[in-house]
């Protein structure tokens, strides 16, 4: 990816609501995509990754993402969010050499 865009800067949901966070990338050759999560006061952790094969990728904590090549998208989804999902979510993509580039992040707030 040459760039990664996250258009939702802050999303507020109630518990048990469904979640979808948008991520778009610009094509730059190899398409390796990631979602990372950063819980308040903590470091980034990998949620899931896509390299090839099945475009629906399942990650930890019930999250999944779908790679749609025709839309240059890699949206993150969860059927039912919990208060503990409150965090900042970053989409990222392989750029070049050994580099990964990150989107600007989406802050997710869950109302109890």
């Amino acid at each position, binding site marked *: 990816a040459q760039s990664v865009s*996250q258009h939702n*800067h802050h999303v507020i949901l109630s518990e048990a609501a469904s979640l979808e966070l948008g991520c778009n990338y610009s094509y730059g050759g*190899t398409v*390796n995509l*990631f979602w990372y999560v950063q819980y308040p006061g*903590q*470091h*980034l*952790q*990998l949620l899931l*990754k896509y*390299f090839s094969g099945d475009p629906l990728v399942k990650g930890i904590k019930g999250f999944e993402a779908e790679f749609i090549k025709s839309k240059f998208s890699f949206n993150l989804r969860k059927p039912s969010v919990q208060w503990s999902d409150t965090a900042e979510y*970053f989409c*990222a*993509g*392989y*750029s070049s*050499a*050994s*580099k*990964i*580039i*990150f*989107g*600007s*992040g989406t802050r997710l707030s869950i109302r109890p």
Partner: protein
Amino acid sequence: DAGITQSPRHKVTETGTPVTLRCHQTENHRYMYWYRQDPGHGLRLIHYSYGVKDTDKGEVSDGYSVSRSKTEDFLLTLESATSSQTSVYFCAISESSDRGRYEQYFGPGTRLTVT
């Protein structure tokens, strides 16, 4: 959790002073990275290293230098700190690269304030 420590964890410094941040790993991973995190910008790569004494620039390298004399340590130096370098700095490591296929593990971060 991967064995990554960063020091100091918090630092306040004055404009114009030199600052060195340290990243130490116990995983013997080949690749090490320095990022800065700023609101609205996500994480941006400053410099990275693909081996001892082997480093390269990232997208926001101006004003920063790095050194890696041992596998386990990766130092980030601000030669003359400016207020625009106030940020949270994260170190990351990965076993290899292969077009980003190897997961990056992140350290706890260093919050730097330049007054």
